[in-house]
């Protein structure tokens, strides 16, 4: 249960990550495997390599978003703005690359930087102005949605003039090295982000304070820690991760779609919760979130492959969320 702090106990970082994840997330992991088995029995097309890759690709954006919001949720907060923030970052990317014609790396950095800035703002509202996270980020959600529409003039911004931009997500470095395994870069990025953030969470001061703030903010403050500053840092970091998601989705669509984004936040939060992170704060792991995100996309994909109607897919997703959290709760008893 103490995955956060356990992770470091024995062996290397990765061993710790897997070990802690293994005993905490056993249940989520088991349900993932069960879903995989169930769907492959249900349809021969499901286990195809191309379908597996499609599932991973579908997970990449939501997975990165979920990783970002995991940090916020561990501090005992919530971020409702990540969906529209992601879009905002994509639009900023578009402004830098398409409107201003700046080089690709500048655009990517601008997208991520926009996310960090938005996170910084949310963090300041929450930590300094003491606005409850739910309200602060609800406000940010609307502000960013509006700004995306204003900046883009409500029209999609295409990246056709920036060759290589779509490769960020759709290209496959792995596929070039191992021709039989065309795993898209988006997926690679998801895993790199996951490993990086898991490292930060379990091994650095920032991570330590993330858990500590969620566990008992007042105790942290009275320990002489500048709790507000750390909280802002955590929101900023989460914002930057959201920026990465923005770049990923822009690259995957090869365009910034200003009307998109709303609803992503709930899907990401669902993934986090399925992964066993407590909305009360103080507990949670990146591995859990990753599994949670995979469960969501396997479910969507599997039901589609089995030709279940769209409406019923939504119902099933809702049911799975409740089931997963219930199972997690009864295990803890």
């Amino acid at each position: 249960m103490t995955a956060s702090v356990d992770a470091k106990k024995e062996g290397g970082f990765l061993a710790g990550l897997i070990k802690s994840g293994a005993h905490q997330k056993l249940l989520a992991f088991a349900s993932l495997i069960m879903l995989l088995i169930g769907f492959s029995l249900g349809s021969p097309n499901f286990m195809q390599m191309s379908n597996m890759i499609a599932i991973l690709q579908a997970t990449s954006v939501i997975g990165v978003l979920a990783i970002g919001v995991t940090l916020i949720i561990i501090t005992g907060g919530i971020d409702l703005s990540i969906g529209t923030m992601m879009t905002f970052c994509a639009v900023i990317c578009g402004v830098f690359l398409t409107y201003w014609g700046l080089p690709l790396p500048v655009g990517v950095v601008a997208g991520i930087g926009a996310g960090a800035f938005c996170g910084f703002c949310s963090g300041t509202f929450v930590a300094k102005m003491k606005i409850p996270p739910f309200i602060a980020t609800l406000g940010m959600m609307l502000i960013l949605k509006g700004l995306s529409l204003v900046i883009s003039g409500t029209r999609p911004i295409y990246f056709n003039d920036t060759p290589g931009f779509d490769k960020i997500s759709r290209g496959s470095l792995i596929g070039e090295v191992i021709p039989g395994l065309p795993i898209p870069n988006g997926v690679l990025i998801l895993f790199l982000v996951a490993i990086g953030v898991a490292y930060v969470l379990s091994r650095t001061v920032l991570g330590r304070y993330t858990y500590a703030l969620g566990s008992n903010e007042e105790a942290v403050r009275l320990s002489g820690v500048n709790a507000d500053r750390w909280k802002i840092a955590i929101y900023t970091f989460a914002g930057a991760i959201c920026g990465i998601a923005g770049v990923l989705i822009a690259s995957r669509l090869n365009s910034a779609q200003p009307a998109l984004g709303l609803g992503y936040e709930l899907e990401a939060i669902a993934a986090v919760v399925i992964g066993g992170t407590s909305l009360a704060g103080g507990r949670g792991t990146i591995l859990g979130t990753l599994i949670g995100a995979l469960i969501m996309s396997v479910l969507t994909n599997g039901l589609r492959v089995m030709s279940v109607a769209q409406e019923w897919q939504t119902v099933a997703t809702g049911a799975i969320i409740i089931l997963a959290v219930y199972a997690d709760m009864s295990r803890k008893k």
Partner: protein
Amino acid sequence: MDKIVEMIGVDKGFPGVQALKDARLELYKGEVHALMGENGAGKSTLMKVLSGIYKKDAGEILIRGKPEEPVGPREAQALGIGIIHQELSLMMDLSAAQNIFIGREPRLSFGRIDDAEMNRKAATLFSSMHLDLDPQTVVGDLTIAKQQMIEISKALSFNSEVLIMDEPTAALNDAEIADLFNIINKLKANGVGIVYISHKMDELKRIADRVTVMRDGQYVGTVDAKETPVDQIIAMMVGRKVQHDPLVVPEISDVPVALEVRGLNRGKEIRDVSFKLHRGEVLGFAGLMGAGRTEVARAIFGADPLDAGEVFVGGEKRHITSPHDAVKAGIGYLSEDRKRYGLAITMDVAANTAMPNLENFTSQLGVLNESEIDTATQEMVDKLNIRTPSIHQEVRLLSGGNQQKIVVGKWLLRDCDIFIFDEPTRGIDVGAKAEIYRLIEDLTARGKAVIMISSELPEVMRLSHRILVMCEGRVTGILPGGEGTTQEDIMTLATQRDTNQQNAGYIQ
């Protein structure tokens, strides 16, 4: 006499800990039975088994001679067993009355709650306890002592035949303890059997009829409380003798001043407080509950705002507006309420110990040096004899006294110049208390300055080189430490009300 409870051969294990093995307890009607033992001996666990919170692994529980296995607090209540837990379990946003009658609120028609009736019942309860409290006060606004009194009244409202009190006096002052003892005597006369857990040895003689001692989850023995010398009971608890070194009051008049505060003021809580604290000195803060000692401490530490006042550290004026500033200025503050302000209870022992010290344990890039944290924590665990299966155990799974030791440990690890200890030994057993006193003496020997706030006068007198007494937010006097000062001297100052102020308040 009628045996009302008998527990025989009770075992209870948790992952990594055998909390109880062959524990025993026998309770008569109309008896106050003290349950004693070191921190982590299994007292709370045994009582949680009796009150249906934990399920025992083995053993037998006889209630009025009949084998019973209470599951859940409700069923225990039905069997006539009530418990006041060591850790407060009140809902901070609800009123006192709402807390007491939660789940059994007096009703009107259509399921509406009869608030008037509920508040009236609570008021009756409070007055029977000499508790001056408005039933509609929100619990979160009250001091920990008042909250404790609410817990007690809640337990009393069930009219149980067996009442378990797990360290009810840990947060109470002498007057409140006297009130509680009156209540206990009344209950006794009505034939209620009371299990009484406490680490305050003097209470034994005052209230208990028999004592059962536990060590490491095991039954050690049951003796008569009045006839058995305290030393013998302590020896049964710790398995050795605990010795007290006499207090040596150093000459401090020409030692540099570590901390000076001038004219601290905030509303009615802090009124014109000024004092000096020298290096190498223990300055005791005595006073009744609500005298403003904690308020002064928190204000110096920057945890609460001030209306006026200056703080000088090492002769230099410091502008402290947050705990972060205070720690940078070399001041550490150990809070009186460990659960609310002291610990991140879902984190492990090492994480909590390192909390005020993380910058000492991190690389330039902010990466934690786990092995150093672990080594330092392990040293602290050994030094304070903290009972935990490992330094990676979550703090919430430790016994109350062991949690308290971690709060002490985390500040001892931090190299402050000025330590403010607010009730540092709350819930800590006699052996470990002696060790903490020794550590405080070590600190002053190294030139550190210590402010010691404690509601236990003997403790203040045992440690302090000077004793500052407060009443109603004012400093009413500073007494020399050592033999010359008596409890009466302190109490006189502690009750020295400001008559002008009172009249003024009355006229308003």
